């Protein structure tokens, strides 16, 4: 058992994983996806999780976001410990405290853009905070597109609607799973800009999984994962810096 570098600071924590372990299968075929990972995601911070494929970056996000179960350790969203929650409570937690942006299939094709944005509140049976929703819509430049259905929107616009949906319910934390993976670089840059603005201007907390160094450079902090462990961290990253660091891992992986 090796000790992993722990990352912590004095500011309030939006989500925290401690000694988080996820194991698939048994015996011979056992695969350790996450190996005693401990990490904090601070409020008002934009964090990117990076790592080569199979490093466990998506698994880490899924476990912290309450989408997947884990073998041992602890995950907290705010003050709530996830390991003891039943499916129903987890669902409620996701609904009320977490926002999601996926790579694809983010929106329901049957609903208009506005209906998609307010969907989490509709599910919760809550009234949307009109002023806030309007502010989010304005910020994302979606005012003219609210009546459109997803099929009538470009990929970038669709993903902006997804960002708006994630922001609209004022979640404690937003998780993005390769949110720009399906977009061209210009639309991707736009969406990442909005995510950064939501952190800077609205004080939102965002955690994003990506394999794109340019995308990671929009974050305040980058966490690097390899073989289910956090191997490095970079504050105020630049695209080149991230790329260099990734190349270093790749080289290490090949030589070892």
């Amino acid at each position: 058992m090796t000790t992993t570098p722990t990352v912590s600071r004095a500011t309030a924590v939006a989500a925290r994983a401690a000694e988080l372990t996820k194991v698939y299968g048994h015996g011979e075929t056992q695969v350790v996806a996450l190996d005693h990972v401990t990490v904090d995601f601070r409020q008002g911070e934009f964090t990117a999780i990076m790592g080569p494929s199979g490093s466990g970056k998506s698994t880490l996000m899924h476990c912290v976001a309450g989408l997947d179960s884990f073998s041992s350790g602890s995950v907290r969203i705010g003050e709530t410990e996830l390991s003891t929650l039943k499916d129903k409570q987890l669902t409620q937690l996701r609904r009320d405290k977490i926002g999601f942006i996926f790579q694809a299939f983010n929106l329901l094709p049957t609903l208009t853009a506005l209906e998609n944005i307010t969907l989490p509140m509709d599910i919760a049976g809550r009234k949307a905070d009109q002023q806030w929703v309007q502010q989010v819509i304005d910020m994302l430049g979606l005012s003219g597109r609210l009546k459109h259905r997803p099929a009538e929107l470009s990929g970038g616009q669709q993903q902006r609607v997804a960002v708006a949906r994630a922001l609209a319910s004022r979640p404690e934390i937003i998780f993005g799973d390769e949110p720009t993976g399906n977009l061209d670089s210009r639309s991707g840059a736009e969406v990442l800009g909005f995510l950064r603005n939501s952190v800077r201007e609205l004080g939102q907390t965002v955690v994003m999984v990506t394999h794109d160094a340019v995308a990671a450079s929009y974050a305040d902090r980058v966490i690097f994962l390899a073989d289910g462990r956090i191997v490095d961290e970079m504050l105020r990253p630049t695209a080149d810096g991230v790329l260099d660091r990734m190349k270093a891992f790749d080289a290490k992986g090949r030589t070892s």
Partner: protein
Amino acid sequence: MFRTALRNVLAHKARLLMTVLAVMLGVAFVSGTLVFTDTLSQAFRNQSAKSYDDVAVAVEMYPNPEEARKTPGLSQKVVDELAKLDGVTSVAPRVDGFAGVPDRNGRLIGLGWANKGANFTPGKDGKDRAYAFTAGSGPVEDTQIALDRDTADKGGYRVGDTVRVATNGPVKEYTLSGVFTTEDGAVNAGGSLVVFDTAVAQKLYLKPSYFQNLTVSATPGTDADRLVDEVLKVVPKTATARTGTALADQQAKDIEAGMGTLNQILLGFAGIALFVGIFLISNTFTMLVAQRTKELALMRAVGASRRQITRSVLAEAGLVGLVASAVGYVLGIGLAVGLRSAMSAFEMKVPDGDLVLGTTPAVAALAVGVLITMLAAWLPGRRAAKIPPVAAMSSVHATASTKSLVVRNSLGAALTAIGVVLIFLGAGQGGDEGRMFIAGGAFLTLIGVIVLIPMLSRPVIAVIRPFFVKAFGVSGKLAGLNAVRNPRRTGATASALAIGLTLVTGLSVLGATVGTALDKVTTDQIKADYMVSMASGGSLSPEALAALEKAPGVTAVSPQQAAALEIGGDYVSASGVTPGAVEKVLKLTVVNGSLSSLGEGRIAVEEKVAAKRGLKVGDTVPVEYLDKQKGKLTVGAVYEGSEFVSPVLIDRKLIDAHEDPAEIREIFVSTEGGASAANERALSKAMGDNPAITVMDHKDIRDSFGGPINMMLNIMYGLLGMALIIAILGVVNTLAMSVFERQQEIGMLRAIGLDRRRVKRMVRLEAVVISVFGAVVGIGLGSFLGWAIGETFKNSLPGYALVLPWDRIGLFLLLAALVGVLASLWPARSAAKLNMLSAIKAE
């Protein structure tokens, strides 16, 4: 290509299951019906052959009224002469008519029209070949009778017991001398048979020493045709003689013809099942093809021709059809066996016999199943062939084009328009011809609406949706939206229910409408509290009439005695009534003159007949009675037509002299204080508690008229059941497919906070929306057809007015919703169980 088809079938076992079930049901009905009728026909044929086994020649005599005065039948003398003919071993003369016995509660045993009485004709050995006694022996004294075993069992009668026997005269008591089994038609039809001593039967049904028919047995080897010639020389000219073989053939044919109706009803079930099944099959294959777009495109890319693609889809369909038909055929045999037991359970006696498994049902089952499946898969197969090879490379899902709906909608609109025009024409025309128009129009409209159903889905579901949103929140909203995402699929799924409910609603509307009209007729036209008639549908005895006239508490009595008068060269049916009483028991609107003139020997004539023949009050017309006697009658009144009397009214005493025996169809009775249990009891008692006589109050009368409609309705409800089962299969199919296609969406919804319960509810509500949509279309169309057919009855049904049976319609909607709930059980569960993460990532 065939191997690919086989592999595909095996790969999609679960998805094809619903298709197999639908085809199976239809095929089971087709083959079941055919096997059942074959088996039953064979059994009946064997039975007929057996009952005419030792009959060489059968003689019947139904003399006309004039001749009947002199020779009412085959005399004992004729019987004796026949017995002396060459080769004749015995002659069994018969006379029969109505006879009924009560059960312990005084109610008639068996169906009224099949309660028979006959004579006991012992041969030289003292036995009658027609009856096999299981206890006691045949009646040989005039106080004895024998009963068939079922009737004796039902009434709890044992040999030596006293049995009250009702015939057309007063009830008499007899001693039970024996119990027998028989192949007699009346008993087989669920009636009863009372066997009297010959002299008693003759007195009851004909005249002493006369018979209605007889059978002649001959020594083996006697030429039956030659014997017929011999027999004809002896019997009166109006008698007919035929060989036993000919008669057995005739009887078998009659039975087969009688079974035709049942056959048609059952094949109707099969037709509905298969027709509705077509949509389900077509839906399944469309989905399978859509799901396999890439695969098919790849095959095209590596060189398969369009025709080969279509053929592979058709081969797959053929294979599915073959398996389903084979299972359906086996199921059909089970159905045939079950039907026979069911018939016995409903007191319809069917002869025993081996199951007849002909080649026709087997071939029909396979042909129908395979062809229907392939036919239904043909369009999806063609669509599959149109997939461009490049689709293999693109990641875009092939979406259903809305373009081709334009052609479809135009076609549907045209068909519907023509159908509706025909229906309106028919409704305006009225009568049988009008109904023909409506039938044609209804067929076109039904097809048209089915073609249009995808287009209808959006507006109709848009109307339902707000209620769902209000009641079920976001699940309801998403369900409503999901239901219209693929209008073709929704439409095809809803069609099953729409077709079933069109038929059933149409008939329900008609039933309610006609029922209400009948209510009005009975309450409007009958002033009397009771209508008395024979359960057998035969004539009441004059004694019963006399007894009612003297019964306590009775205020007015008039019979409706069937008669006929020849006026101006042709016969007009007339009603013999009691002057002075008839206007108290029936509501007759007099246009001219007065009904009291009936007492002075005058007649009353219905307005229409009077107008046609130019008759008015005071006219005297020469008439001829049925017994060819001539007379002159004066018109005393002209009245508006009534459902309960013939177009001519006459004092029954004037008729009595000319028609013997009197044909008293009904007796109308008014009592002090109106209809009550005590009054009804008093009437029955006055007539000697005769179980064969029914005393009906207004409600009973209405029910007896409404009976045939209710029976039709019950058959139709059976059809509805069939359509419901297929509808469930179809909805299961569609939803399973939808859940499969939308797993990413469902995963996303789960991720952003829709819990399992509400995912389930969303799928369930989608099923309910689709089912209710089908029901709404069916109910709408059915009501329209019910109205149209009702219009054609307008002229023949006084007091006709459209009645919509809201309670039934509500029930149908509820049933439809239930179909949705049931059908969604499994798809909803699998949707809720989806693994979120793999669902989101699935491509």
